[in-house]
Structure formats: structure tokens, C-alpha cells
């Protein structure tokens, strides 16, 4: 049928435009990542994007869908982009490729493609890599000012593709801090030290901890916060989910911190450590896998914040945004169902299963 019905007017925004705004808004955080952790981040991004486009094109072909219009809706690109931003800078190239390809094929197209997937594809890819290659996935570099052997561009390429530097040195060298110890991320460091019986007051004297969380990491988080606020201002993302994530994190960490500030990290440390801001503004706000109602978005965000703090504190992994997002993704159909807004002219929204009293 060629019958076209109204409206004939259209706001000039497109999916592609939204996706490009998201990528654009990651730039401040990306600059911070590159500044502190070197060019490996850029190489990861290029690898991930190339993998995403090739995989997406192939699978669209297999699924007999129009390749070009969907390929350029930008969604695959955003998945790859966000996943790459979450990866350690010198991750072996094939791990990046596996993570991205898995995200596109299994987390997205197996469910029916864009709009139909239940789980955040980038986080599915991330979690697959994290539980398959836990060592490599937690091998972060020391931030530039603390690194004994800062990595240049060529070395980054060499490490990623061969596992050794141009000169043939193994990766361990790059991970040494100025004090000669292997550097972990602030979250990882705190976890390890706490397990060995140190108190937070002692741990905080270590070089890797400084400022709000740790050198480098706080700036990365501030960068993503700035980009996220920009997206909010542009109305590309709603404000409920990021607000929920941050609030949930503050509430949960405050409860623990107030109980024992010697053993539990402060809310400000949680907010500016790890992937908090990237998660709150860019990952949790993926519209496809988040709740769509205003109330549902609040609950979704709060859940992610709370779960993240719980796993960071009591779980086996230093960071937990990915797990928290995936866990809350599961609740979305139910959240959407039970948080329907009140429709015009209805007094109170009836729920299915309510029995009429009269």
C-alpha cells in the first residue's frame, strides 16, 4: 500500500544524528583517556569500529536486510565506540575483535537487530571479555605521570598486535609505576590492599590514589561527566537515568561509608573512579535496553548505582558498571509494565490483575 497518512511534518532528527551526538560527547573523556593512558585507546577504537562495521554488514547480508541504511544508522559504531572506551589500552587486538563481534552478533542481531535487544551490546561484549580474559581485562596502565616507561604510539601498536614493544620488551615493563610496582586501577588497588588487611587511611597514601579517586581516573570521569551533561542539555539523553545511577551510588556508598569509613570508600571516590561517569551517561542511557517510562528510568538508574557499589565492595571484580547494567536490563520489561504513566483523563492507572471491588 502506498497510502500515506498524516503527519506530513517531521522534526529533522534522525537516529544517525543521535548516535553521532553520543560519539561527539565522549570526546572530552576520550582526550583524558588518551592523555593519561596513551594511544592504545585510539587503536582500540579504530579496531573496534572497523570490526563493528564489518560484522554488522556481514550479518545484515546474512539476515537479508538492507545493508547500507542500517549500517549507517550509527548504532553499531556507538556500540563499538563505548566498548572500546571501556577496554584496557593495550589489550591484545584479537580480544577487542572478539568482544565487538560478539556484541554485534549475539547481543544485538540474535535478538532481531537494533531496537530488539534486551541487553546492552557493549556491556555484553565487555563482560564476555572480562570473564574470559580476566588478567588482560584488568591490566590497566599507570597514568602517564606515574608511569616508569610511558608508552609511545608505535609501542602501543606493537603491544596490541604482538604483545611486546618495538624493542621486544614484554608488557609487564609498561605496567610498572615510578615506584617500581605494577600499577593497578585505583579501584583494583583499594580492593587488593583491603584484602590484605590495610585500612583505607593507609591505602590512600599510595601514589595511585590521589585527588577525588586516582590520578588520571578522576579526569577521565570529569571528561565523561562534561560530555554527558552536554548530551542532557541537547536532549539526546534524558536526565532520569544518569541522575538515578549517581544517586543510587551515592546512597549505597554513603550508607557503607557512614558505617565504617575505614573500610568502605567514600561516595566521592565511587563517583569519580572506574567507569562511573561513562556508565551513568553513556552506557546506562542506551535507549534500547533501558526503561522507557519516567518512573521506570529512575528505578533503572538507581538499581545500577546501588548494584555497582555492592559489587565493587563485596564482589570479586574491581568495577561493576557492566554487571549492574546487564542485571538491570533484565528488569526492564517488568519496570516498563508497572510504571505506566497516568493517561489523560484517567484517574489512577489501573494495573492488570486488579479486581474490581464493585
Amino acid at each position: 500500500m502506498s497510502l500515506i497518512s498524516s503527519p506530513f511534518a517531521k522534526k529533522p532528527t534522525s537516529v544517525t544524528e543521535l548516535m553521532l551526538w553520543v560519539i561527539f560527547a565522549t570526546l572530552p573523556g576520550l582526550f583524558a583517556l588518551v592523555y593519561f593512558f596513551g594511544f592504545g585507546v585510539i587503536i582500540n577504537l579504530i579496531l573496534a569500529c572497523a570490526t563493528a562495521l564489518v560484522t554488522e554488514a556481514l550479518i545484515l547480508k546474512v539476515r537479508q536486510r538492507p545493508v547500507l541504511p542500517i549500517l549507517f544508522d550509527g548504532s553499531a559504531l556507538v556500540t563499538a565506540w563505548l566498548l572500546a572506551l571501556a577496554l584496557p589500552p593495550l589489550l591484545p587486538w584479537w580480544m577487542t575483535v572478539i568482544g565487538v563481534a560478539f556484541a554485534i552478533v549475539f547481543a544485538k542481531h540474535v535478538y532481531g537487530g537494533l531496537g530488539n535487544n534486551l541487553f546492552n551490546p557493549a556491556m555484553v561484549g565487555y563482560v564476555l571479555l572480562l570473564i574470559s580474559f580476566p588478567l588482560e581485562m584488568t591490566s590497566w596502565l599507570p597514568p602517564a605521570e606515574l608511569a616508569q616507561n610511558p608508552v609511545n604510539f608505535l609501542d602501543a601498536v606493537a603491544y596490541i598486535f604482538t604483545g611486546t614493544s618495538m624493542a621486544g620488551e614484554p608488557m609487564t615493563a609498561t605496567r610498572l609505576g615510578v615506584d617500581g610496582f605494577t600499577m593497578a586501577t585505583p579501584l583494583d588497588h583499594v580492593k587488593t590492599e583491603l584484602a590484605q588487611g590495610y585500612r583505607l587511611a593507609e591505602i590512600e597514601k599510595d601514589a595511585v590514589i590521589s585527588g577525588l579517586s586516582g590520578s588520571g581516573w578522576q579526569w577521565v570521569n570529569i571528561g565523561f561527566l562534561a560530555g554527558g551533561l552536554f548530551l542532557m542539555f541537547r536532549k539526546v539523553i534524558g536526565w532520569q537515568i544518569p541522575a538515578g545511577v549517581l544517586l543510587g551510588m551515592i546512597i549505597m556508598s554513603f550508607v557503607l561509608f557512614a558505617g565504617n569509613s575505614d573500610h568502605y570508600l567514600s561516595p566521592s571516590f565511587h563517583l569519580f573512579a572506574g567507569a562511573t561517569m561513562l556508565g551513568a551517561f553513556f552506557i546506562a542511557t542506551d535507549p534500547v535496553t533501558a526503561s522507557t517510562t519516567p518512573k521506570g528510568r529512575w528505578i533503572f538508574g538507581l538499581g545500577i548505582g546501588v548494584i555497582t557499589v555492592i559489587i565493587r565492595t563485596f564482589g570479586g571484580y574491581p568495577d561493576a558498571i557492566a554487571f549492574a547494567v546487564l542485571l538491570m536490563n533484565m528488569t526492564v520489561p517488568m519496570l516498563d509494565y508497572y510504571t505506566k504513566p497516568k493517561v489523560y483523563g484517567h484517574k489512577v492507572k489501573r494495573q492488570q490483575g486488579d479486581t474490581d471491588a464493585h
Partner: protein
Amino acid sequence: MERSNYKSEIPIFEFHGGIHPKEHKLESNQTPIQKIPLPQQLAINLKGQAGNRSLPIVNVGDKVLKGQVIAESDGIFSTFQHAPCSGTVVAIEKRPIAHPSGLDDLCVVIETDSKDQWCELFPKKNIHELERAEILAHICESGIVGLGGASFPTHIKLKRESGIDTLIINAAECEPYITCDDRLLQERAADVLRGAQIISHLYDDINIIVGIEDNKPNAIDALVDARKQLEMDTVKIAVVPTKYPSGGEKQLIQLLTGEEVPHGGLPADLGLVMHNVATCVAIYEAFEFGKPLVSRVVTLTGEACQKPGNYEVPFGTPVEHLMSFCNATNPGVLVMGGPMMGFELPNPKVGIVKATNCIIMAAPKELKHDHLALPCIRCGACMDACPASLLPQQLYWHAKADEFEKAEEYDLFDCIECGACAYVCPSDIPLVQYYRYAKSTIRNQKVEKTKADKARLRHEARNERLERVKREKAEKHRKAAEARRKAAEAAGEDDAKKAAVAAALARVKAKKAQQDDSDTKTESNDQKDTDA
């Protein structure tokens, strides 16, 4: 576009959602309302209003004068129709009508003469002396329907009297491109208020509020002047911010009162009745001059229209006549109504009806037309835009999957089809089309179900009847048989006695054969025998 800084005389509330599409009003609201040369033929659609078809009372070959009744109300849910000009009825036949699917329906076709001569008119200026029923009857006989776009018969809307305390004049005109109400107010604000005054005679005590968007500064000024001139100081002018769809009945009510029309209810449930400015003018003309509704102001606009503006157009004027008048040789899309809620005309031969407020003769790329819909990314922009606070996205999923019960559960029928959701959709999904599809399918299913229920009842009744006939027949046969048996018994009683003796002998023989059996068994056997 210029905004009026006139301060609203009553507090303005907000409605959820809404959008700000390009207004495109300046193209057509800069020139006065003009007349248009009469076409050769007018085809007046007898179903040119909401409700039922009017019943034609003229015959082919009849000479008619302008304003003469050509079709009557069916007495239930329609109005009168009048000849929009003088001439001859040349046909009463099915012609393409103003409908998105290009349906044919019954039209009275009038060959116009050049005189444009009115029939005798009977003004009713003595409004104070008229009974309520007389006023309503005159409105019905003048063929007046809501001219805001829905063309609901006005006399039906005005019927309810009890509990009504406020009359809202809808001058919001929120759809892009359309400016006919704007122009009407600028030129005839006093007549609008006079019409409202006539309506107010139907009620004991009623407040009048004019609701208008702030993008019509000249119309607002004209209203203020007219109110002063007519000394109608109690009329309140409510200026609402320009936001689509503020002119929707439910939305304007929410803006002006802060209340929501209850689900399944009417504005009258809140004590409100709403009429469009053009309807008020039509009522004024009907009482002041006795003129029935034979024409309306139509906005002709769009980039392909060379003479954009507002025109007084007689009903039944073919759209192609308007196009040739405007030198719109080859418009890309032809839309009747506004770009948000109007529909594409499949055929330019159709006549203008009472609901036609605008014809957009769009240049090929002016309006969004054919496009590729991408998958829904659940961004929720539609939800933020929906003035009914629905979840358009959920409705879409369910409508697409033919899960109509689910769609109803998400209050599909509270959708006013304003198109705000589809306007903001980044994936270009024709959402409203899905809702229309779901609504009409559900309606059809309900009709089918009622039909099926009726058929089932009929079938059951028939079965029961057949069953009864059968029973009665059997009873009759049984009685006849009994009668015959009695007759036979009476005739051969002796034979019967002999038979009884033989039977008794047989029983004795049988008993002997079973001597070993216990007493009880014998007894029971006895019983059996007697039974037999």
C-alpha cells in the same frame, strides 16, 4: 513568528508533551479573505459531516436557489444541507468524496448559473423570544456543524443544558499552515462574539472564554476591540503559548481549566462546551440574516500554490478548481487539512466539505512523504511528545504485532491521532498509521463480534424451535399411537387374556429350569420376569 505580548486574562495551565513544528502561517495570513469564482459544477457530499448521510429532497432537473434545502437531517445524527449557489440539479450519484481512501459516496451535483441568487431567507433576530428547542432546530436547519475540523453537528453538541457553566471558543488553531480562523478573527471578531452570545442564550448563566494561541497577535487585538465595541466585558480572552496540539479540545480544556476530560466522558462532564470561531460566525449568520451554512473559509497554501491566502469557498467546490485558480499546476502532495492531522487527497476532483479548513498544495519536497522507517530504538521521544500521556512506543509494538488487547490495555483509544509522536520519531516510523490500523481493526472486530453474537443467538433460537417442533410432533405421534392401542385393546381383550396365560406358563417353565438358584435370586428373577 511574531508573538503577542497580550497577557492572558485567566491563568493558563499546561498539558503534557506537545511539539513546535514550523508554523508556515505567514504564507497565508497576510491577505484578507477573498471570494473565489464559482466553478461550473458543485458536488455536495451528503455525508459531508460527522454522523449519518443527509437525505436528499431534490430531484435531478430541479432548479435550486442558493440556500435552498437540498437534503434533510435523518433526525438522528446529521444535519441539513443547502444549495451553495443557484442552479440546476444535474445528478444525484456516487462521486469521489473527501476521504483518505478515495471512496465514492452519494453527492448532489449542481450545475451553477451565473446569478448566485439567494432563496428567501428568514432571519430570527428575536432570539430572546425563542424557546431552547426552537434555537436548536434553527441551528440544525441551517446545516451548522463544528467547523474546527470534526464537523460534529452543532445542535447535538448544544443539546445538553444541565450543569454547563462555561463556553470555550476555540481560536487556538494550532496546526501549521492553517490560518482561516486567524483571518476570520482579524476581520470579523465581532461576529464571532455575537455568535457566542447566541449560544449563551441556550444556557441560564454561562461564562465565555476565548482560547487563542499567542502567535495570532492581530486576531487577539481584533478580539479585544470587538469585545469593547459590543460591551461584552465578561468575555475572557485566554492567550495560550503556541504549542501543537493546544487546539485539541481536550488539550485546550486542560490549558484553560487545569482539568482533564474524564476517560470515556465529554467536556460537558466538566461543565464545559467548546465551539470553534467559524462555527460561531455561522450561527450568527443563521440568526441575524437567516443564512444557512453554504460556504466556509478555507486556507489555500503550500509552496505550489501561487495565490496563498484564505478564501470563502462554497461547499462542493472541486479541489482541482481551487488548484487551477491558484495556478498550482503540479503539486507534489495535495493535503486536505493541516500537515499534522490532514490526509492526502487521492483525487483532486473531490468537493470541499464542511470540515475542510485547509488545502495544502505542497511542492514535491515540502512535506515528508515516502520514507524508509528504521527500527524503533525505544528512545521515548514519542512519550515525551504525547499530549495524552500515552506510551506511543508500546502502542506501536502491540499494534505492529496485532496484539490488540494489549494495545487497548495501553489505552489506544485515548490517542487523539495528533501525530506529535510520529513528528518527533528519529526512526521515521509512521506511528499514527499503526494506531489507526489497530483502532479500525478493533472496531471491526467488535462489529464482527456483535454480528457473530446475534447470529449465534438466532442459530440457538432456531435450533430450539426445530427441537420444539420435533418434540411436539413426537408427542402427537405418541398420543395417536396410544389412542390406536387403546382402540385395539378394546377390540381384542380376549386375545390379550390368552396371551397373559401363555406368558404365565412360560414363566413357570423358566423357574423350573433354575431350581438351584437361591431364594433371593429367584425372587429377583421373579421380579425381572414381572418387569418384563
